[in-house]
């Protein structure tokens, strides 16, 4: 089950040793979540299946975008970004592992 979940959450990262992922489908949008000032902006993201979310770190120190059992960016260095296509049909809470007060949620339409 875990493998299937991870398989559904296709990952890519700039500057990290993550697997290459195919570009989003023609219908998939790309939405940016800015990590700055110790918060995710926006912190609540509504997407459609196939949309990709790009976490851009504008802070001076590393953060993560981690949804337990769904996706984990690992450290996103300052100035770098990390992209995920979240699995469809669920609400996914996520947080920065290094800074627990930093939280957000992704709502993926069915």
């Amino acid at each position, binding site marked *: 089950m875990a493998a299937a979940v991870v398989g559904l959450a296709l990952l890519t990262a700039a500057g990290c040793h993550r697997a290459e992922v195919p570009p989003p489908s023609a219908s998939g949008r790309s939405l940016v979540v800015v990590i700055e000032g110790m918060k995710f902006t926006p912190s609540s993201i509504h997407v459609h299946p196939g949309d990709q979310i790009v976490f851009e770190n504008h802070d001076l120190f590393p953060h993560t975008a981690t949804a337990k059992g769904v996706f984990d960016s690992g450290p996103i260095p300052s100035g770098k970004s990390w992209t995920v296509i979240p699995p469809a049909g669920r609400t996914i809470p996520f947080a920065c592992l290094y800074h627990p*007060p*930093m939280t957000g949620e992704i709502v993926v339409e069915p």
Partner: protein
Amino acid sequence: MKKLIPLLTLLGIGALPLGAANAPKVTDPQIAAIVVAANQVDIDAGKYAVGKTHNAEVKAFAQTMVTDHTAVNKSAVDLVTKLKVTPEANDTSRALTAGGEKNVSALHALEGAAFDKAYVDHEVAYHEQVLQALDTVLVPNAQNSELKDLLVKVRPAFVAHLEHAKHLQMSLH
């Protein structure tokens, strides 16, 4: 555990009403030295705690302190290098460094839960003081706009650190 000497006392504010109009004058080179010293104090305490604590949450917090304050110091040093500003050691930066060394020395004598509690208690008090100093002295007095912008940019990190430390403090008491 000895009480922290209030940072604002070290900055010469004492019992004066707070506010930019009454804030003592601190130059940009002095601010740079204070910022570097303040970050280094937390880096040193964090490194010690990472090596000593057996509590996973305390260890994770301490590592975050090391990572974040190291990054802030790098940004501060890179900026003053670019601006050709030489940090000027002053009574406040020296007192911060001395206070940090005393804190680590005191932590040497503690073990286990007592260590964790003392380390986190100090982190709460320390971040409260640093935030107050940022707001009432360092930011209002910074003359160079890039230095001021850096101080403003890092402020949310100190707020987040304080929030994290307080949450941890509650779990340890």
